[in-house]
């Protein structure tokens, strides 16, 4: 007897199903089922994975959804054909649109509108009462394809009677019975995990859940013979399944993706139009003549595009970029698309084929049959305009974001399971705090004992085994950061669309792997802070276009070689600033390498040092050669020549595999995918034998082959493609040029584009100052909202006042008259805005310092009749307010704006006893390698890169400059509390100086001196205070007082200085 399970629920019914679609498919195939039907609760999120797995396993798959209604029993819906599938998607989109993110609100009337062509299996409620009879009466009139009743063995005492009643109902209302088992997991062992998932969903422990859990563990895929035995009295229910199998002809293969129609001039095809635009663009890019090699590339690419019918995709992206340019938004393509000469000609990407050796096959290849994937970076402040343009142009029914599936990761899994099992909170915390290397067993016995837990205790064993099973199961869907799907026909007739948590956003139920599998197109609309900064800088300087910047300016490279790169794109981090003097870039390609080399991939693969040694001439550049019988001696030189024999880019790794180890294009592709898989769990090991073996077989030395593999493995997800590095290098050059030649405008643009970049405003301002830029403080009579240039000086803007709003600034700017200082405040800004201005010392321009201004503003509330801002009101001479000292001024500067132009806190604190013996950071410039030194400074950056095995890098800043500190893991562990909580640090250690002059300090001891910051605004000596009046009091107890518990203070008082930027 054949059997098909038609009510299988996968883990994409979030927190209910306990098996992945792939597992269900594998089990059904193994049991010899005729087919499998996956129907998740109001969702089609898991069907593509099931489809891919079923094809591989050779199992027939029916795709549908289990509809949950507010006013009717549940029904399982299987569309019979493509049109019916579209209706199901529309139905689910309607339900999702009505509810919040993740929920779905459906009524039976909605189904009536979309019922044509659907096979519906009604799931009878627990009690068959008159209400259900009424429902069956009404539902008979539905214009669907077929209507059935689900019949299952529930292992309740009245099973036989219930099935008989269902059979009678079926006869009465002319509904066939369908045998089902209401499957929640693929095998009986998963019952425990399903109980846990349900408890997570209900938010209670297993004990508290009680009867809300399933009473037994029978809801798994059973063998056909067993199902026949269980329903022996109703074999017609099994036979009726054949009807459904016969009538459903739909499969996801039928989803043909249609690119949106781009308007092409009458009489031309998309290919012709694309070609025309490409040649026009190429002529613009190369005003003299188009180089022969480029011409050849363009021809080749256009031919391939035509063969694969991708022209409309390119036209779509071209349209988006054109629109952005028309709005004046800077944008640039990134990623593998930068490998395309056509994209360069069209202006989508910025990598010139004459400068970089493009590998078009990395982007599109005939073998891969994957649709192209172009990612475009836009100015981060204006990205929303592009997104709205897409929604507007294509409509909400034809454009939506892709989804991302959020899975259970080890920490979230152990927390969830620990809570559900009722494990004590400290034990769960101890388990969640563990870390391990990929490939190791998580929560192994020794690790548990180290954490103070007993691995043999039953509850711990349950928790660990269940948490391990939970890892990798999906938890919920979320919107992808910028991947848009666009279609010609209605998108919501291909896949359901639902609202995201953000207002105005919607996303489909499939993620980017699903989209790839079905051959749909996706464009990534991404945001880049530096593009905003560059455009703002251009606006200040009157520059039009990125192309207007002179190329290969030696001053720029000299500046970068000095390591002077704060604010420059990509190369401003501590690690990059240390690499720049070593690498000493002198041309554009050097920047490409600089961008790619300081990344976890090359660092882990041990490519950085070999490259530097060869570049500096310490090592001879040589290329191992294969056996002459197998290949030419310069085989590797072609691949690795430009990088001195060291593979630094993803394409080089792929090329080594193809040319040196003779991988087939498909295998190379699989290798690339293994390299790119996020958190690859050992998949790359498969390729080890093939690569090393292949190379050795062709005559390469084994050691070299092994080293190559290590380098490729080290790429993991972090190696850059060369084209991507080149796109970024372009922006590195432009931002460096701006910093070099127009430091004031560049600093203003960076400040106006915050939040972005590696550094806080305080560092940007002090860096500008050290380059000779004059800085004018924030002043309500002169400042705009944005920072501006005035006489070549940088005029700081009102936006730097924490908490100030652009709307208030606009009012001030409007009310301001050139010669009337007080006019700036003749507008309707609220009292809180005035307070902010006063505290930020922005009212000096009208003659009011902080105290005076605050006092007078206070009077607005308490004595509204007092005159406030007449023309240059003389300060109220009667009020005896103490004068604000410098220390307090500096502290208040930091509290209100995040920086101070008066002095650095360290300059004022240097004489304090706690900092005795410390030297200014500037001393490091001349410190000897190996000498001991004691420094003090504010922490500006904390970094703990994943590739550094627990080592921490801290940057501190004092009044003379910055210092980079290195803390080994042991030091990090012993001073953990200080590192986390401190703002001001005193550190002692040993100087480490490299040959190029890069200086670090290896720390041996640190102290938290943050309390000193509070002393900046300490009161004057007692003698200066006014006479005290006698107050009624009694002597307090003569015992010594216990330590004072500080009363809660405003967070800004506890932490007056802005928090450091922390990075992994």
């Amino acid at each position, binding site marked *: 007897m054949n059997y098909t399970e038609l009510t299988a629920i996968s883990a994409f019914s979030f927190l209910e199903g306990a098996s992945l679609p792939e597992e269900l498919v594998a089990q059904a195939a193994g049991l010899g089922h005729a087919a499998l039907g996956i129907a998740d609760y109001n969702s089609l999120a898991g069907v593509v994975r099931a489809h891919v797995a079923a094809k591989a396993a050779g199992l027939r798959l029916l795709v549908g959804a289990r509809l949950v209604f507010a006013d009717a029993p549940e029904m399982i819906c299987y569309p019979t054909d493509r049109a019916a599938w579209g209706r199901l998607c529309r139905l689910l989109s309607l339900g999702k649109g009505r509810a919040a993110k993740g929920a779905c609100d459906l009524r039976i009337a909605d189904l009536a509108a979309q019922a044509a062509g659907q096979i519906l299996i009604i799931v009878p409620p627990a009690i068959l009462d008159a209400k259900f009879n009424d429902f069956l009466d009404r539902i008979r009139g539905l214009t669907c394809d077929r209507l059935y009743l689900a019949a299952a063995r529930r292992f309740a005492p009245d099973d036989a009677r219930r099935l008989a009643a269902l059979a009678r109902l079926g006869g009465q209302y002319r509904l066939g019975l369908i045998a089902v088992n209401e499957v929640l997991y693929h095998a009986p062992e998963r019952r425990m995990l399903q109980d846990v998932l349900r408890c997570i969903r209900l938010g209670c422990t297993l004990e508290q859940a009680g009867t809300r859990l399933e009473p037994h563990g029978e809801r798994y895929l059973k063998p056909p013979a067993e199902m026949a035995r269980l329903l022996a009295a109703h074999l017609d229910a099994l036979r009726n399944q054949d009807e459904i199998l016969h009538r459903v002809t739909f499969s996801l293969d039928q989803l043909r993706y249609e690119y949106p129609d781009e308007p092409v001039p009458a009489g031309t095809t998309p290919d012709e139009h694309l070609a025309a635009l490409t040649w026009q663009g190429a002529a613009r890019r190369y005003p003299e003549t188009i180089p022969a090699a480029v011409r050849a590339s363009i021809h080749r690419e256009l031919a391939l595009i035509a063969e694969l019918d991708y022209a409309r995709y390119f036209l779509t992206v071209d349209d988006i970029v054109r629109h952005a340019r028309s709005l004046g938004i800077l944008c640039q393509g990134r990623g593998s698309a930068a490998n395309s000469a056509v994209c360069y000609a069209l202006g989508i990407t910025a990598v010139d084929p004459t400068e970089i050796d493009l590998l078009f096959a990395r982007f599109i290849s005939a073998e891969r049959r994957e649709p192209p994937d172009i990612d475009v970076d836009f100015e981060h402040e204006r990205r929303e305009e592009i997104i709205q343009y897409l929604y507007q142009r294509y409509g909400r029914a034809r454009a939506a974001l892709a989804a991302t599936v959020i899975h259970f990761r080890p920490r979230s899994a152990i927390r969830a399971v620990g809570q559900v099992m009722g494990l004590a909170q400290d034990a769960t915390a101890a388990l969640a705090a563990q870390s391990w290397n990929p490939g190791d067993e998580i929560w192994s016995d020794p690790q548990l004992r180290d954490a103070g837990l007993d691995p043999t205790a039953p509850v711990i064993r349950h928790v660990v085994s269940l948490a391990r099973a939970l890892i990798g199961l999906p938890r919920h869907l979320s919107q992808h950061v910028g991947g848009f799907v666009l279609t010609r026909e209605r998108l919501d007739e291909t896949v359901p669309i639902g609202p995201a948590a953000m207002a105005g956003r919607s996303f489909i139920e499939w993620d980017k792997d699903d989209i790839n599998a079905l051959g749909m197109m996706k464009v990534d609309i991404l945001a880049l802070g530096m593009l905003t900064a560059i455009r703002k800088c251009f606006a200040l300087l009157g520059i039009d276009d990125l192309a207007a910047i002179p190329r290969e300016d030696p001053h720029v490279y000299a500046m970068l070689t000095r390591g002077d790169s704060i604010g420059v794109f990509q190369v401003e981090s501590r690690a990059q600033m240390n690499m720049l003097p070593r690498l000493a870039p002198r041309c554009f390609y050097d920047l490409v390498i600089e961008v790619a080399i300081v990344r976890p991939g090359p660092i882990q693969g041990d490519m950085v040092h070999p490259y530097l040694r060869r570049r500096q001439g310490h090592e001879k550049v040589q290329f191992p050669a294969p056996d002459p019988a197998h290949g030419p001696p310069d085989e590797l030189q072609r691949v690795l020549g430009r990088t001195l024999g060291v593979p630094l880019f993803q394409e080089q790794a792929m090329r080594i595999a193809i040319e040196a180890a003779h991988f087939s294009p498909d295998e190379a592709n699989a290798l690339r995918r293994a390299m790119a898989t996020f958190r690859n769990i050992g998949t790359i090991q498969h390729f080890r034998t093939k690569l090393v073996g292949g190379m050795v077989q062709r005559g390469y030395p084994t050691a070299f082959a092994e080293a190559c593999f290590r380098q490729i493995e080290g790429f993991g997800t972090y190696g850059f493609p060369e084209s991507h590095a080149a796109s970024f290098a372009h922006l590195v050059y432009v931002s460096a040029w701006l910093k070099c030649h127009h430091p004031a405008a560049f600093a203003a643009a960076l400040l106006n584009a915050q939040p972005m970049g590696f550094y806080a405003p305080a560092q940007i301002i002090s860096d500008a100052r050290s380059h000779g830029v004059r800085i004018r403080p924030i002043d309500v009579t002169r400042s705009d909202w944005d920072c501006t240039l005035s006489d070549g000086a940088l005029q700081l803007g009102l936006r730097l006042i924490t908490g100030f709003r652009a709307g208030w600034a606009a009012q001030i700017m409007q009310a301001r008259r050139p010669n009337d200082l007080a006019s700036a405040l003749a507008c309707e800004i609220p009292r809180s805005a005035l307070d902010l201005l006063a505290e930020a010392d922005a009212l000096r321009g009208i003659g009011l310092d902080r105290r005076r201004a605050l006092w007078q503003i206070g009077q607005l509330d308490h004595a509204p009749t007092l005159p406030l801002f007449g023309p240059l009101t003389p300060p109220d001479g009667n009020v005896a307010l103490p004068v604000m000292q410098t220390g307090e001024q500096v502290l208040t500067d930091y509290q209100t704006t995040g920086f101070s132009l008066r002095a650095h806190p360290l300059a004022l604190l240097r004489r304090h006893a706690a900092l005795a013996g410390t030297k200014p950071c500037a001393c490091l410039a001349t410190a000897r390698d190996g000498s001991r030194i004691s420094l003090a400074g504010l922490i500006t950056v904390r970094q703990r890169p994943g590739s550094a095995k627990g080592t921490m890098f801290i940057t501190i800043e004092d009044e003379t400059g910055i210092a980079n500190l290195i803390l080994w893991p042991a030091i990090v562990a012993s001073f953990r509390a200080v590192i986390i909580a401190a703002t001001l640090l005193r550190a002692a250690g040993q100087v480490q100086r490299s040959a190029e002059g890069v200086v670090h300090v290896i720390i041996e001891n640190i102290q938290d001196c943050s309390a000193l910051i509070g002393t900046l605004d300490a009161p004057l000596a007692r003698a200066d205070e006014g006479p005290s009046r006698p107050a009624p009091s009694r002597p307090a*107890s003569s015992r010594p007082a216990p330590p004072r518990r500080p009363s809660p203070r405003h967070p800004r008082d506890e932490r007056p200085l802005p928090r450091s930027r922390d990075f992994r």
Partner: protein
Amino acid sequence: MRRVHTVNAAARARGVRADLSLADASAICPNLLTWPHDPQQDREALDRLALWAQAVTPLTAADPPDGIWLDITGCAHLWGGEAGLMARLQARLPGARMAIADTASAAWAFARYGEPGQNDLHALPIAALGVDAATQRRLRRLGLRRIGDLAPLSRGELLAGCGADILARYDRALGRAPDAVHFLPAPTDQTVSEQHAEPLLTAAQLGGALTRLCTSLCARLTIARAGMTALTAQFYRVDMRLETLRLGFSGPTRDAAHIGKLLHNGLNQIDPGFGVEIIRLEPVLADMPDSQDDWLAPAAMDAAHTLDLLLARASLQRFAPRDSHIPERSAQRVAISAPPAPFPRPVRPRPAVLFARPAPIQVIAEWPDDPPRMILWRSQRYRVIRADGPERIGRDWWRFAPDAADTEAERMRDYYHIETSEGLRLWIFRVGIYAPERSADWFIHGVFA
């Protein structure tokens, strides 16, 4: 974001402070234990402390979140003067900060912000006036850090520049304006209490005190023509804990012997700790005119007394429902004082009598899960004529250790509701899947009505 609210000394020693984010605190101290802050509980504990403090003076009040007021006007001499009172309280509450002053505001200021030996209000920081953090910040910005900084400013300037609230607080602290403190309600009438300089420790001492108090209380009730329906006995211990004994009576009574006997019985529950210094009896009164004593028959009086004794001595329990699939765990025992909870209507048929321990039986049944044809129970053979089932109930696996050899499938139960030829309706089950190579175990679990 969750922040740390309070830390104990051990955590503070490790570097954890209040106001740190929970993530930072956990990073500093990985084995930090945390609980959600329950302001309600804190408030109740504070109220209890204020109540305890009534041992010293009747006028006490809680000062949330972490203080109490005591108005000791006229009480100090009872405790050896102000110094003696402070010493006594300090001994009872070793971690507390205290101060005495002429006004409530000043006392508050000194207690929270003063140093020992300091008696100058003007030297205290502005925060000692009780202003909120935002106002403190503003005043600090204006350069006004200490209460003394306010002195040079005239009242008009203070009002105009800082606001009426500051001015009012300043006045209150200096005693120019009155404070308002809401004290706890006074204890009820007819309360009797005894205070001992030497704390009482033994049962005999406590019993003696109770007897004396009881006699005096009943005498007063007789005069007032009232009886008590409930009685609370409070024992104030030297370590600031309060033990309470509550008695209820079936009718109003002022029989000293009877009440005394019940009190003595209840002494077992009282833990005197390091000693009890004050005992107080507080009755709940009801009218009880003299005539009532006479016409109540002695037998009835005995019955009432017996009932009181029984309820006070025995710890009665009742059954309450528990939500569980497992039949024998679907009810639990709770104390009789717990509110009664109705048993929900069973979704599936359940027997009227459930055996505490299922009894093994022998069975003839068809494989794999047909109901049995015949059962053998207590050497008696029963023929089954009708049966329902199987009802499959899986084990509550989380209460048992995982065991590869003993899978869940082998521990589930299949229940059958059978009717025998004699008309008996029984509830039997089989453990585990029936495999031909293994004989399964069958049990009887209950009998239907």
